[in-house]
């Protein structure tokens, strides 16, 4: 190879090195979404309910049945059917719900803010408590503080969310009367706040309706705290292990030898470098909360996407089930990949 050839190729290779990683990332995300669609498509096909019979009824003649089958495109090859399915979903058509009689996409748009509100409050609680707990546990490694935090963390893996929700309802609603019961707001206030964002706390604050705000808050605080507890368990555990990794580094010893106060060592020297790693952890648990809200919503009759999904499950309303699965899955993937991308952008070590 001559020198000139090397020189002309070098910029091209550099460009490829710069363009390829983000391109590969976009491709991975696209393939993941396609995989999600493939899974919901396959689930929709293996359902024992015959979609044609559901339309024409079981007393239809063979001709009617065949005609309906033809019209529904079930004679086409699977690839064609899948392509049509992807096309529909991209255009926002998730089919009709049998139980509500409306388009699944509209239903989901209506219930999603309730879930978003609860999960967001949950993750705020989880971060606000979990990060300091993790730092504290790392600072007191091996002491009883560390053990207690470790057990709290393990409890997050061992306690069923729906059971904790029930116990919480009995204790804080029925016995102590500290919080509101199931639902998003007291019945007599329901529908009194004009819907703007769909987030009840925000909407009632905008409208200046503080009675509604207080009622909404008393209803959301328990389910959100319980959700927050589950994210806290994971966040505290990860924060602790990241911190321990940092505290073992030589610059920490240097700082301590220099006589830097322990609080400064912990929060400035050790905590700062792990903030970027924590983004991924928080993103992951936020996505997990959207999923975890399925159980909590059922217990608290919270009119969100989880409740919608479980109601649809019991009614064998497949379009609604698959639509909700798709939306939760897509949000889950988007948050995960989004925090992954953010991590790569912010952490120079992850940039390749």
């Amino acid at each position, binding site marked *: 190879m001559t020198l000139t050839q090397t020189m002309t190729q070098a910029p091209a290779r550099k460009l490829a090195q710069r363009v390829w990683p983000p391109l590969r990332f976009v491709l*991975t995300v696209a*393939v*993941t979404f396609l*995989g*999600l669609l493939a*899974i*919901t498509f396959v*689930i*929709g096909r*293996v*359902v*024992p309910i015959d979609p044609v019979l559901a339309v024409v009824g079981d007393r239809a003649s063979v001709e009617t049945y065949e005609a309906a089958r033809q019209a529904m495109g079930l004679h086409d090859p699977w690839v064609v059917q899948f392509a049509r399915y992807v096309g529909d979903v991209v255009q926002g058509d998730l089919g009709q719900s049998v139980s509500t009689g409306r388009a699944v996409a509209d239903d989901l748009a209506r219930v999603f803010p309730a879930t978003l509100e609860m999960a967001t409050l949950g993750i705020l609680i989880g971060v606000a408590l979990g990060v300091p707990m993790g730092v504290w546990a790392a600072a007191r490694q091996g002491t009883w503080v560390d053990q207690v935090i470790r057990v709290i963390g*393990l*409890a997050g*893996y*061992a*306690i*069923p*969310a*729906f*059971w904790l929700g*029930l*116990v919480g*309802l*009995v204790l804080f609603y*029925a016995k102590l009367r500290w919080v509101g019961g199931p639902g998003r707001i007291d019945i007599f206030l329901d529908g009194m706040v004009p819907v703007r964002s769909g987030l009840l706390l925000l909407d009632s604050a905008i409208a200046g309706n503080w009675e509604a705000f207080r009622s909404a808050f008393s209803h959301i605080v328990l389910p959100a705290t319980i959700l927050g507890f589950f994210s806290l368990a994971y966040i505290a*555990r*990860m924060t*602790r*292990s990241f911190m*321990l*990794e940092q505290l073992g580094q030589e610059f920490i010893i240097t700082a301590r030898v220099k006589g830097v106060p322990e609080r400064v060592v912990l929060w400035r020297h050790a905590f700062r470098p792990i903030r970027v790693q924590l983004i991924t952890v928080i993103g992951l648990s936020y*996505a*997990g909360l*959207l*999923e*975890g809200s*399925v*159980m909590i919503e*059922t*217990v608290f009759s919270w009119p969100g996407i989880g409740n919608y*999904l*479980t109601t649809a*499950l*019991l009614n*064998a309303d*497949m379009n609604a*089930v*698959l639509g909700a*699965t798709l939306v*939760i*899955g897509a949000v*889950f*993937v988007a948050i*995960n*990949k989004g925090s992954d991308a953010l991590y790569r952008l912010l952490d120079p070590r992850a940039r390749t």
Partner: protein
Amino acid sequence: MSAHEMNLRDWLTSDDPETRMQARLGQGFRLARALARNPLAMVGLVVIVALLLIAAFAPWLAPFSPTEGVLANRLQPPSATHWMGTDELGRDILSRVIHGTRITLMIVVLVAVIAAPLGLIMGAVAGYFGGWVDRLLMGFTDIFLSLPRLILALAFVAALGPGIENAVIAIAITAWPVYARIARAEVLTFRNAEFIAAVQMQGASSWRIIGLHVIPLCLSSTIVRVTLDMAGIILTAAGLGFLGLGAQPPLPEWGAMISRGRSFILDQWWVATMPGFAIVIVSLGFCLFGDGLRDVLDPKQRSKG
């Protein structure tokens, strides 16, 4: 030096074992000793052993029938006769919880038996062959990994229909990708080692190498992961039961029992709360034991919390 000249302990911890069996027993002994030094892991082990014993002797341990109750005794609070009270059909809750151990155990064992080998084989094949096989299998695995497990399990059960068998299948379908990832990572650490090259040069087929040399080396990390996952499997199964998609009545499945107790939660709190304690204790047991096992078998993972 022969075995009878020294005591059993020295024989087990000998640095140059004479037979393969002695080496293996010695390894097991060291492992057990390391585990015994971890009090929390021992608590976990006690819980698991208790679970096994209770499941094995459920009919003899349970004071009453799990499925037949006395209607006159319905919704009795916990008392000396009914330690956990009775449910809405007058059935003794303690007896139902005791019989429920069998269902829980069956679910976790079935899921582990289906999902772990599946993931192990996928990961071992991907890691051993590399190239496009690896890219294809791991791409497939990553798609499953990046989707929410509980929601997928729910959707699968919705399609397959409610019931304990379908719940097991649905949970297994969502559980295997983790094992595939772990096994592949493990294989990559020794893929280019000399002993693999040596077996290859002896003319062993790829499948023989994977089956006899690759997979056995991935076993310990998979076992650790399966133990740690047990709690999650129990919670998912209970969740499916709670939603009415898992075990069907009158089976004394814990999640389904909590769901039944929901209707009287405000006045008869014990109906829904008692089975929950059983779930928490068993899940915690698996968590603690899995944690301890990981520290012993898989020290590389220890720092990752």
